[in-house]
């Protein structure tokens, strides 16, 4: 049986974070009452004139630059014609042959390897409205249309077919999301639909240069869904070919509940878009000065920031990669390090306990109640020996759940570490007296028996005894 390799390209739609729509001054605010954020322009009423929002062009250029694209000196808008109720004009204003940005790339890191993924183009277009169904699209008796989203600005980012596995596709989308979030032109929330991803997938026998027939995959609403859908589709296509069949070029939708991809519509007829230049909109001539100005406004991007974290803070590559995966997390880390200058310790807490608690509660970094200054404060308490490492974990959890200052928690719960030699010495003596067997073992050469005795002292002090001191005092007494 032939060995196959997958060829994957992604088309990503990103909603831009502007105040108003792309061609009119209706609000883009999310969650308004149905059909309340509309005007004659986005409703496509006769006689209206769309005018491009300058911020949209600026954001598209910014995204293009962040993705290492060349910005087109001359760009224009075109009409993409199709009939669907989410599109009141029966055409979508998009960009066809002269997109705002082309020929970019980004780098993905997977298993310690770096791979370059090409970006074919970035173009601007308007979003369509939202169809509300009762139940699913196949069972609903009719559809309800809300045009609030119609005309919300989008950029579509098209990759080269450079990915070869579901893992690479996910890594690409993660990196793309991070870069776009760093530029702050979009918040890229997959669940709210401000980041949407379609995948073009084909398979070919290993060694073959020509691409196989591709299918277009839609409706993946999370990174997990993207991974599962692509994995399924690759296997499905290989099965078709192994059974002597042919892959049909079509659009398929990912059914999350059933865990399968299903055909959506036949491509030939439905995709005859008859693009032509939109006569309502005049061309864009982008000056070098404007591009330079936008370039100067670009923030430090994930790759640069990662390199700086390695150089400036002496962090391992892996720590730097994880910490810079989102701008918010990297900001959090840096704010903390500014107040507690031990980067590796801060990194361990952020990547360890903080990440674990965030995963457990499904909370994003923006919703974490521990402020960077509070984490720094706790690390200072730990550093000074006011609290033990074990107690620190308890304090941290309490901080995560309540947002209280570490000092307050330590005081309220009486968690201050006992470093009073006299106090500990007394408990050590009691423990030695109460556990003659372990003492005998230790003195007889089973040195590991001391671990049990340390545990007993810690238990007697509810974990508050300074472990270094306990060890020292125990050894002194046992060895004497």
């Amino acid at each position, binding site marked *: 049986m032939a060995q196959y390799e997958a060829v994957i390209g992604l088309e990503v739609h990103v909603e831009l974070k502007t105040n108003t729509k792309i061609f009119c001054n209706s609000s883009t605010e999310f969650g308004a009452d149905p059909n309340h954020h509309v005007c004659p322009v986005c409703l496509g009423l006769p006689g209206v004139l769309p005018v491009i929002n300058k911020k949209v062009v600026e954001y598209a250029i910014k995204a293009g630059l962040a993705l290492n694209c060349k910005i087109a000196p001359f760009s224009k808008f075109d009409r993409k014609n199709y009939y669907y*109720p989410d599109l009141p004009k029966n055409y979508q204003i998009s960009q066809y042959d002269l997109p705002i940005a082309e020929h970019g790339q980004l780098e993905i890191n997977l298993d310690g390897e770096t791979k370059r993924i090409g970006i074919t183009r970035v173009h601007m277009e308007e979003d369509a409205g939202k169809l509300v169904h009762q139940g699913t699209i196949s069972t609903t008796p009719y559809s309800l249309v809300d045009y609030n989203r119609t005309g919300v600005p989008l950029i579509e980012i098209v990759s080269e077919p450079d990915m070869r596995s579901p893992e690479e596709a996910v890594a690409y989308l993660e990196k793309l999301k991070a870069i776009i979030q760093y530029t702050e032109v979009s918040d890229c929330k997959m669940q709210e639909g401000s980041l949407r991803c379609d995948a073009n997938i084909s398979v070919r026998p290993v060694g073959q240069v020509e691409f196989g027939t591709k299918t277009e995959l839609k409706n993946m609403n999370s990174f997990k869904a993207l991974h599962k859908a692509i994995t399924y589709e690759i296997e499905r296509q290989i099965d078709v070919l192994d059974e002597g069949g042919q892959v049909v070029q079509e659009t398929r939708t990912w059914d999350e509940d059933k865990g399968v991809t299903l055909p959506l519509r036949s491509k030939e007829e439905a995709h005859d878009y008859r693009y032509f230049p939109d006569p309502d909109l005049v061309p864009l001539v982008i000056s070098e000065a404007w591009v330079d100005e936008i370039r100067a406004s670009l923030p430090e991007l994930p790759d640069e920031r990662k390199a700086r974290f390695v150089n400036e803070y002496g962090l391992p590559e892996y720590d730097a990669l994880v910490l810079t995966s989102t701008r918010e997390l990297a900001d959090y880390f840096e704010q903390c390090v500014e107040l507690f200058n031990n980067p590796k310790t801060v990194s361990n807490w952020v990547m360890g306990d903080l990440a674990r608690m965030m995963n457990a509660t499904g909370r994003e970094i923006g919703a974490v109640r521990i402020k960077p200054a509070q984490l720094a404060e706790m690390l200072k308490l730990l550093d000074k020996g006011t609290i033990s490492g074990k107690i620190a974990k308890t304090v941290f959890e309490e901080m995560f759940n309540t947002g209280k200052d570490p000092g307050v928690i330590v005081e309220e719960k009486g968690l201050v570490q006992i470093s009073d030699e006299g106090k500990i010495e007394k408990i050590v003596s009691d423990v030695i007296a109460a556990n003659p067997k372990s003492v005998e073992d230790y003195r007889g050469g089973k040195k590991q028996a001391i671990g049990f005795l340390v545990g007993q002292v810690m238990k007697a002090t509810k974990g508050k005894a300074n472990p270094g001191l306990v060890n020292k005092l125990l050894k002194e007494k046992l060895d004497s």
Partner: protein
Amino acid sequence: MLSPKEVEHVALLARLKLTDEEKETYRRQLSDILDNFRKLQDLDTENIPPTAHVLPLQNVFREDRVGGHMAVEKVLANAPQRQDNFFKVPKIV
């Protein structure tokens, strides 16, 4: 001359239902129109840049400031069917 199949394809894209008679009429009329436009191909356009727009204008921008919205009753005034504040349409799969 356009083929009957091409006419049917264009009609489908425009969501038009045509009788056989109409198909034949449009086949002739559309072919005439296309033939007329084809005459433009005779012109030498070697040194003429492609025209993106007929007006000598570029970079007409709008600032990103929210303006007024239409009252929802006005929005839905011409809706053939509505439910609450939604347009109600046949489902299209």
